[in-house]
Each structure stands twice: as structure tokens, then as C-alpha cells.
């Protein structure tokens, strides 16, 4: 049992103050703005919930909400299983581990605004490696015109960028499993699938929680990577929530964009909250543990 002791607050205070400054104050400002029509930041009019009514009744918001949800679903369905699989493939020998980890982590180290440029140059039929191969086979990619292909490019790019994070997290969790577990499993004649299901997967529990949450949230707010690929096109097919919001902010519609931000934040918060609720339900049956 943890000790009940409110001195814990003293230890958390610096963190709470810092997050209050860079997080809470801006958040309250955004909520405040969302109720105003703003010309210049000093001259504004109270409009109540007008922006909210407008946004919720507009098809545009719900369409971009749907697109973002679909995109996150794809991202999770691909990256989480792939990440686990690759983590299981990393060899045991120390030297190769170092090389494999460094190679896997490389995509995470590219400045985000360069990622679209990298992929565009890769897909270029004149100079890019993939572009040339495709041209040699006579395949012409019409990905600027076709919604399916633009989606494919963005999903592949995102998978390239972020699967590594899932791999590193899962790999770290897998190495905490004591060797005796595997020896016991070998004596019992467990198949690799049984070892995975009953030894490895339970150990990945919390790491996967973190990975799923991070991947869901970051893919839900994809902006820097998606916008340069096709500017939300073709025909708005890749107008994700954050891309849409970014356009609004660029157009200096502070009031509506603040309202949109608040809705956006509430959605993300609700999903995270539901997620932890579900997590607690899964945890509950094994509650009487001696930890």
C-alpha cells in the first residue's frame, strides 16, 4: 500500500506550476477566446456559444473528424502489431542490438517538417528511388489526384516515422522478462505462440497502453506531415482535423478557431479518459496482487 500523505503535493508542486504556466493558462485563454468575435486581440465582442453552434451544425467539422478517426484507426491497426512483431525480431546478441536499435530509431530523429520532403523526393519519378522503380515497371502513380493514393502515401509515411517508437518501447519492455520465465516455458514445451501469449504479451501491457495512447493522439493531430503532401487534397480528402484548424488559424479567424480548438481538445480528452477507464476494468480482476 502507498502511504496516505498530502506532503506528496509538495513534490508535485513544481511540475504542476510549470504545466500551469505553459499549459493551463494558454488553455484557459483559448476557452475564453472561443466565446468572442475577435478583430484585433484588444477589440472583441461577446458572441456566446455562436461559434460552437456553427461548428457543430456544419458538415465540415464532422467530415474532418471522421477522416481523422479513420486515419488513426489505420495507423493503430498497422503500427502497433508491426511494432510488436519487429520488437520480437531484434536479436539477443549485444552488438547487433545496438546497431538494430540505432537503425530503427533513425526515422524518429528527422525534423518533422523534412519528412514530407523526404518522401516526395523518394516518390519523384525522375530522381527518387521508389519513383524510378515504379517508372521502370511502367506504373504511374497518380497520387496527387487519387484520394486513395494520397491516403496511402500519408499512412506509409506515418508508419515509417512512428513505428520505431512502438518498437523501442516494446523492445524495452520485453527485455525486463527474467530468463527463468523462458526456461520454465521451454520445460513445459510451450510453443512460441504460447510464450508470446502468456509471457511476453502480459509484460507489454503498460508499454502498449502508452504506445497506443501516444500513437492515437499524435496521429489524430497529424498536421506537419500531412499538409505538405497534398495540402488536404485531393478535393479535401485528407483534410484532417488539425489541418483544417491550421487553415482557420492562418486565416486569422481567432474566435472560430479557438472554439474548434476547444472541441478538439475535449474529443482528445474524452478518448484518453475512456481509455484509462477501460484499462482500469482490465486491471480490476487481478487486483489482489502483492505489489
Amino acid at each position, binding site marked *: 500500500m502507498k502511504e*496516505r500523505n498530502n506532503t506528496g503535493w509538495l513534490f508535485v508542486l*513544481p511540475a504542476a506550476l510549470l504545466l500551469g504556466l*505553459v499549459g493551463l493558462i494558454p488553455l484557459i485563454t483559448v476557452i475564453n477566446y472561443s466565446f468572442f468575435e475577435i478583430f484585433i486581440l484588444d477589440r472583441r465582442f461577446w458572441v456566446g456559444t455562436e461559434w460552437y453552434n456553427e461548428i457543430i451544425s456544419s458538415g465540415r467539422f464532422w467530415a474532418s473528424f471522421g477522416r481523422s478517426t479513420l486515419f488513426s484507426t489505420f495507423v493503430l491497426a498497422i503500427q502497433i502489431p508491426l511494432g510488436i512483431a519487429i520488437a520480437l525480431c531484434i536479436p539477443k546478441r*549485444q552488438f547487433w542490438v545496438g546497431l538494430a536499435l540505432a537503425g530503427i530509431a533513425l526515422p524518429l530523429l528527422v525534423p518533422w517538417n523534412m519528412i514530407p520532403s523526404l518522401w516526395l523526393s523518394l516518390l519523384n519519378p525522375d530522381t527518387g*528511388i521508389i519513383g524510378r522503380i515504379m517508372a521502370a515497371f511502367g506504373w504511374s502513380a497518380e497520387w496527387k489526384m487519387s484520394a486513395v493514393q494520397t491516403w496511402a502515401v500519408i499512412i506509409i509515411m506515418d508508419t515509417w516515422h512512428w513505428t520505431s517508437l512502438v518498437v523501442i518501447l516494446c523492445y524495452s519492455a520485453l527485455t525486463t522478462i527474467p530468463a527463468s520465465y523462458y526456461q520454465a516455458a521451454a520445460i513445459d514445451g510451450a510453443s512460441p505462440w504460447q510464450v508470446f501469449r502468456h509471457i511476453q504479451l502480459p509484460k507489454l501491457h503498460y508499454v502498449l497502453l502508452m504506445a497506443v495512447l501516444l500513437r492515437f493522439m499524435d496521429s489524430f493531430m497529424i498536421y506537419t506531415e500531412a499538409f505538405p503532401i497534398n495540402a488536404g487534397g485531393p478535393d479535401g480528402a485528407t483534410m484532417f482535423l488539425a489541418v483544417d484548424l491550421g487553415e482557420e488559424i492562418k486565416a486569422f479567424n481567432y474566435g472560430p478557431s479557438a472554439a474548434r480548438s476547444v472541441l478538439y*481538445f475535449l474529443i482528445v480528452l474524452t478518448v484518453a479518459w475512456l481509455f484509462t477507464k477501460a484499462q482500469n476494468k482490465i486491471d480490476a480482476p487481478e487486483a489482489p496482487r502483492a505489489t
Partner: protein
Amino acid sequence: MLLRLLPYIKATGLILFLGFACLPLVQMTMISFIATLPQPGTEVGSLTFGNYANILSDPNLRAAFGNSIAYVLINICITVPIAIPAAYAFSRMSFLGDKHLFFAFIAFRITPPVVLTLPIFQLFSALGIVNSVFGIALAHCLFNLPISIWILQGFISAIPKEQDETAFLDGYSRPRFIWTFLLPQIAPGIAVTAFFCFMFSWVEVVFARILTTTNGKPISMAINALFGFQTDIGLVMAVTVASMIPGAVLVFSMRHHLSRGFKVGKI
């Protein structure tokens, strides 16, 4: 049959994934060695080290590297010392509202940066820290602090509780216990945390863009500034390659900590 093939399947899978991960980087490195704009002495399309030489001769780019390193270091120096006591409290103590507070912290990690850009810009200009590396370092605490607390909490929870109690019986105060007993034990955890702070902070662009309109530009923004009417793609790619070197060195030197495994706590 399939069982005996398993090691080969694993190796093939890993190599395919590494190939996929490195393909865009191979392309990038190749272009970075090609002269893409006419320059005295080199033909367009010829092999050259000129792009890398241009990084060194451009004061803006050199400054950008300095800025990036400075803000990431400042960020780590702010985040880690603040995260350690908080992680300790979340791991060991139960206090009023602890679960809600932890969730509130995590909520800031998952808040989309676009949502907060405008007010953060206003707040920071009121504080006079726009266009400075300190401003970016502070803004990045928004997502680095929660993740650091989360990771460190896992490490601290992995240490047996009895140890704390023995130390308190011996008359150690809590801060002194943290300093003399806890810190050496969670040193790998601190390294992993600092590594994650580096990774998320080095490549971030949304805050870096709005907070550096004229001055203090990090590498990512300096690359953006290179795009123009006539873009020297070779130079752009060379800067990107150079920007990845510190991270790659860091991952390689961190490999033992990362492969020794770390625990992640529940929310």
C-alpha cells in the same frame, strides 16, 4: 518445420524493416552529396562535398545548430529535476487528487500543439521570451514533462519499497533519501528520460515555428528558410543529414540502457 525456420523469419523481418526505415535516408544522403545548384567549380549533378562545406560557411546554419542544442539541453535541465520528485510522489505516496492530477498531466502531453499555439505566443511575448531558445525550451516542457514523469514513475516503482523504509528508519529525510539512494538507482531511467526529451524536442516544429519568427531559429526552421525561389535541395538534404547525427550517436550510446528494459507505469 516452421519452428526451425523461425529465426530466419525473424532475421528477414528485421532486415526488411531496417531497409524500409533507411530507404528515405539513403535517398537523402545520396542527394546531399550532389551539387544541385550551379556553383563555381562544380557542375550541377556532380558528386561534391560542397553542401557540407556550405553548412560550415553559413553563419545562419551554424547558429541554428547551436540554438537546437541549447534549447534541447535547457529543456532537459528543466524537465528532469522537476519530473523526478513528481514521479517519486506519484509512485510512492497517496495524496488528495493524485490520480486526477496524473491524468491532468498526461492530458497536456496529448493536447495538440496547434490548439495552444496562439495563446502561448501571446503569453511568451508578454514574458519577453519569444525569439529565444529559452522560450522553446519552456514550451516543450508541455509535452516532455508529462512523459518524463510517466517514464520515471515506472523506474521508481520497480525499486522495492522496503528500501525507502529502511532509510527513513536510519534517519534520512526524504529529499536526502532521494538524492543519496534513489538517484543512483534510477540513473538508467534518467538517461532514458533525457533521451526521450531529446527525441521529442529536437524534431518538434509547431512551437519552434511560432516562437522563432526572427531570431533563435532551430535547425528545422533554418531548413524551412532554405526553401525559396531556387532551392538548393542538396544543401537542404545535407543539413537534414547533419541534424540527425547527434541523435544517432545518442541512440547508439544509449543502447545498453534501452536494451536493459524499462517499466512503464499505469495511468
